[in-house]
């Protein structure tokens, strides 16, 4: 399955191994794994992340990002796996992979999917610490990264 939500921990290496199978027409696979950090931006320990999601809109937002990546880059296929629920430090939150005939398209598609996932995927993220918990909003840096893809020069 190209796009999937995961309620339980998943093995990113298994996702990559599956995605790699039967790729004799491709010349490149790029993958990325995002992990839950054990420390917050202030350096203090985080016990877990909790991702609230919507039963229908979340998967649809991932599907839309996947479809846009397929339309925009010369890639042959892609995969997105995204966790929801309680996520412990060191566990994978997200896995993305793109396969293409040439490496540039695969790199760019993976980068593009991550920038859009970080700002537009339908999740609400809470950092839980021994001292309490708080909801996280996307950073300006994430919005800046997302905008890069709108500002690309027109192809000649």
């Amino acid at each position: 399955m190209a796009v999937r939500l995961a309620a339980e921990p998943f093995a990113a290496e298994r996702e990559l191994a599956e995605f790699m199978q039967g790729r004799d027409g491709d010349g490149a696979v790029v993958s990325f794994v995002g992990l839950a950090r054990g420390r917050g931006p202030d350096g203090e320990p985080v016990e877990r992340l909790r991702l609230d999601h919507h039963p229908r809109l979340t998967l649809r937002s991932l599907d839309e990002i996947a479809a846009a990546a397929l339309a925009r880059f010369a890639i042959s296929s892609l995969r997105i796996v995204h966790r929801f629920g309680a996520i412990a430090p060191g566990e994978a939150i997200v896995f993305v992979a793109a396969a293409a005939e040439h490496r540039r398209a695969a790199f760019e598609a993976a980068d593009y999917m991550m920038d859009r996932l970080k700002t537009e995927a339908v999740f609400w993220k809470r950092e839980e610490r021994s001292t309490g918990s708080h909801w996280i909003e996307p950073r300006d840096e994430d919005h800046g990264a997302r905008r890069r893809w709108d500002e690309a020069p027109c192809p000649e």
Partner: protein
Amino acid sequence: MRIGFFGPLRDSLGDEREIAAEEGETVAGLRIRLAGLDPDARDLLGPQVRACVGDRIVGEDFRLDGQERVEFLPPLSGG
């Protein structure tokens, strides 16, 4: 009618509430009514909280028939 909440709104308002439907009520009207019933629901009055019916984000003039579940979505955190 059933009203669902997500993200930070769950902390203040719970996962779901049930209130009596009012004929011809719009999403805007529902927000104001909820805010009048519970001070915590004033969070729903901000324009950044979107309303969803079925699988669609709906505008403020959308008329509710009382049968649907209305969901309020605060700004996203992203993945």
